[in-house]
């Protein structure tokens, strides 16, 4: 199968490649969304800890 045959997929190329493109986009998006949600929560947790550490430092001094 050469590159032209691969892209044409026997005149079904638009259908086949749009499906593969869509699923690839879903796969990439899910990884990105998951990592982003985790990074956001890590940031919020660090901020909360910093606030509680600074407020406990003030109360003990």
């Amino acid at each position, binding site marked *: 199968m050469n590159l032209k045959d691969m892209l044409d997929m026997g005149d079904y190329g638009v259908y086949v490649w749009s499906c593969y493109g869509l*699923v690839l986009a*879903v796969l990439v998006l899910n990884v990105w969304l998951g990592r982003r949600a985790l990074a956001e929560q890590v940031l919020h947790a660090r901020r*909360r800890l910093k606030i509680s550490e600074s407020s406990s430092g003030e109360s003990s001094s």
Partner: protein
Amino acid sequence: MWLWFHKLSSPPYAYRTAGLVRPWLFWPAIALMAIGAFGGLVLAPEDYQQKDAFRIIYVHVPSASLSLMIYTVMAVAAAVGVIWRIKLAHAVAAACAPIGAWFTVATLVTGSIYGKPMWGTWWEWDPRLTSELILLFLYLGYMALRASFDDTQRADRASAILAIVGVVNVPIVKYSVVWWNSLHQGPSISKLAAPSIEGSMLWPLLIMMLAFVLYFGAVLCDRLRGEILRRERNASWLTESLARS
């Protein structure tokens, strides 16, 4: 075994374990996807009826299987959370929902694109397609219900009930092509009979299905860790864990 189960239900242990396990799921998933895609797009012969359009099954079928599997995992986790009051189980269910919803969308859209050249239509109110659409509504309903409660515990309980009741749709999707006259083709892979699909077409499909499952595991690890951090706001174990990461 119960000791291991009990340990796994501890948020700090689950958080650390998910972080360790993730790369062992993600990279094999990527490798298997590359192998499966190559096998499906290049090595598998064309179908005598559907020609090269059949190659869509190598992304459509794994997406569909995963959408059903994720809902089942979500419902089981919700049930565990309700019955044994394990909060982490609710976190697992919450983490599953967006992933499952995306794969249901992928199933419906790739199915629609597949249907146009094969059936001459983008959509048909066929039992399989309709029940898969209902599955998407169940996922979206679950997420919307969770979001409507400020209190996490109440959100967990309400959404768990929806997830558990909605699981009845999973066998309906699966067996719709057997129970009713359906435009959608019947099952090609069965636990009880030899597959009706040719071997050279089957192996890339099985590899892609395995790859998608491993991929789900990896993405679930990330989502679950985020969900645990969101819930464990003031826990003392966070200090040490965040300092290390």
